[in-house]
């Protein structure tokens, strides 16, 4: 065989192998699209494809719980790996729409804390519903540092906003009423605890200018001066502050939420999916790169060693911020949302 024909044969077989790999090895990832998908493509998907030959086909999806239900009902699974918010995760997990994960294979070196490794999902990123404060509207020499302050309309006059849903607000109300963040769900599990939360919300209700329904609204209202204090998602407030609006995040009493990744029950590529989840979750360097672009940090150990301090302090799981917060209990809400949502609708109308 001449040198040339050898080369040709090699090229041909390589091309063949590549095309076979391409045809077989794509992974469908149901994410949320937009800027987040752009960041994930650069940090995870492209290097993952270069290392393993597996292309990640990232879809922009919303309302994933009902999509998962539709797939299970129809018996036709279109996604391999899905990104889920707490309620979507709780619904999917309680309904059995997710594959169990083998953490010994995903995290052989044990770089993830136990909290991040659930039986049927991993926690890929975190964000927090925090209190955002327009610092220029605070009374002279005063600081708003807790939900009790948010409820204190005498000391802190000014417009306020909260999200139009029971999740977070019932927790905030109990914390404002003196419940320790760690005990919130023990109290909320009882009838009296729920009554107590709604009674506390009665106090603040007349002072709420708007009940927001989309994450962009509190940002808009803060920058327009429509309200001075509001609950909001931390990443959006960081952005707003960078744009020069005098806003600050008060982490105390914030509700940390996870973004879960899971493999859809019935996916034929569960093994590949586990590889991708492992690639995404177990490298502190990659996670740091991700978190430096969007302020939603992962839980991998050593993450903050790779993030500049001034960026790190803007993140919910930074040691400075984490102590006063509680972690939103996805399973509690998965079980109780329907009922509490009805009560919420009644209450909001009164």
């Amino acid at each position, binding site marked *: 065989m001449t040198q040339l024909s050898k080369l040709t044969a090699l090229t041909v077989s390589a091309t063949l192998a590549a095309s076979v790999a391409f045809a077989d090895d794509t992974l469908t990832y149901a994410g949320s699209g937009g800027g987040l998908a752009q960041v994930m493509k650069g940090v995870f998907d492209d290097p993952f494809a270069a290392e393993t030959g597996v292309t990640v086909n990232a879809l922009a999806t919303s309302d994933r719980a009902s999509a998962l239900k539709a797939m299970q009902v129809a018996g036709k699974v279109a996604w391999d790996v899905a990104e889920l918010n707490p309620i979507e995760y709780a*619904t999917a997990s309680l309904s059995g729409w997710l594959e169990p994960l083998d953490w010994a294979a995903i995290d052989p070196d044990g770089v993830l804390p136990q909290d991040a490794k659930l039986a049927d999902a991993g926690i890929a990123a975190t964000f927090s519903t925090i209190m955002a404060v327009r610092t220029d509207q605070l009374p002279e020499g005063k600081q708003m540092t807790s939900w009790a302050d948010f409820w204190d309309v005498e000391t802190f006059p000014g417009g306020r906003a909260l999200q139009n849903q029971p999740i977070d607000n019932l927790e905030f109300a109990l914390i404002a009423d003196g419940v320790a963040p760690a005990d919130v769900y023990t109290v909320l599990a009882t009838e009296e605890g729920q009554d107590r939360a709604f009674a506390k919300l009665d106090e603040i209700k007349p002072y709420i200018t*708007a009940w927001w329904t989309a994450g962009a609204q509190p940002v808009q209202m803060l920058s327009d001066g429509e309200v001075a204090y509001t609950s909001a998602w931390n990443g959006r407030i960081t952005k707003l502050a960078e744009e020069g609006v005098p806003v600050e995040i008060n982490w105390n009493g914030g509700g940390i939420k996870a973004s879960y990744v899971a493999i859809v029950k019935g996916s034929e590529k569960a093994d590949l999916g586990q590889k991708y989840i492992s690639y995404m979750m177990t490298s502190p360097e990659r996670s740091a790169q991700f978190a430096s672009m969007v302020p939603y940090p992962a839980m991998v150990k050593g993450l903050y060693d790779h993030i500049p301090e001034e960026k790190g302090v803007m993140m919910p799981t930074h040691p400075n911020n984490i102590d006063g917060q509680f972690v939103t209990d996805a399973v509690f809400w998965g079980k109780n949302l329907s009922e509490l949502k009805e009560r919420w609708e009644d209450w909001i109308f009164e």
Partner: protein
Amino acid sequence: MRKRLTLIPGIVLIAVMFLIPVGIVFQQGLFDPVFSLDHFERFATRGAYMRIFWNTLQVSAVVALVCLLIGYPIAYFIVRQPPSRRPFLMFLVLVPMWMSILARTYAWMVVLGKEGIINQSLLAVGLIDAPIKMLFTTGAVYVGMVQIMLPILIVTCFSSMTEIDQSLLRAARIMGASPRKAFREVFLPLSAEGAITGTLIVFILSIGFFIVPALIGGRKDVLMANVISNQVSQTNWGFAAALAIVLLVATLAILTVVRTASAKLVHHNEEAH
């Protein structure tokens, strides 16, 4: 016979794209998994849902009537212009429809807000001392929805008005009718059907609205579509389907009543002449 054959593709399309999905919605609302009216009982007995239902009908009716009051005169004005000027005026009416509803709704926040254009101007000229609360009120919902629906009503009215023979108005004037009388006796009856159709279209579209109330309404401005979308995302499909059925049946009932009444009215007018 051949005429009927050409209808088949259309019928198949409607069956596949419309009748079957609606059938599935009915099945989901009524069978869970065996026949039961539990979802409807939940709708009727929990205070919140009935209130939201009436609220939806009321908001939609107000929006439809306000659109009629504003849109009909605009359509009349355009139709009375020389034909060469009409396309430009219609273009102006249609331009807002090409903009995203979401963007337009956010724009209302800038206009109606505490530090918005209206409040700033009123404060600047000294008409008010403190900003008026306009954003996050039911009024804001009406303003936002009317602005979105108005072009639809104008277009419907306009197209029915262009079919009216303008020389009839001239004839009425020659016969000695005052301009007001010519309008009332000739133009109004002939354009009534288009106006009623337009109002009904706006009403029906409003019933399914949810972006505007969710973004610029107050806490009580929740419409049925908001509740349905919530229930779908919580995977309570049976209940969401039941709510959709209630809305569909109510809409059809209202449609039938208004159509019958207006047919009588138009018919009566024709007989009187």
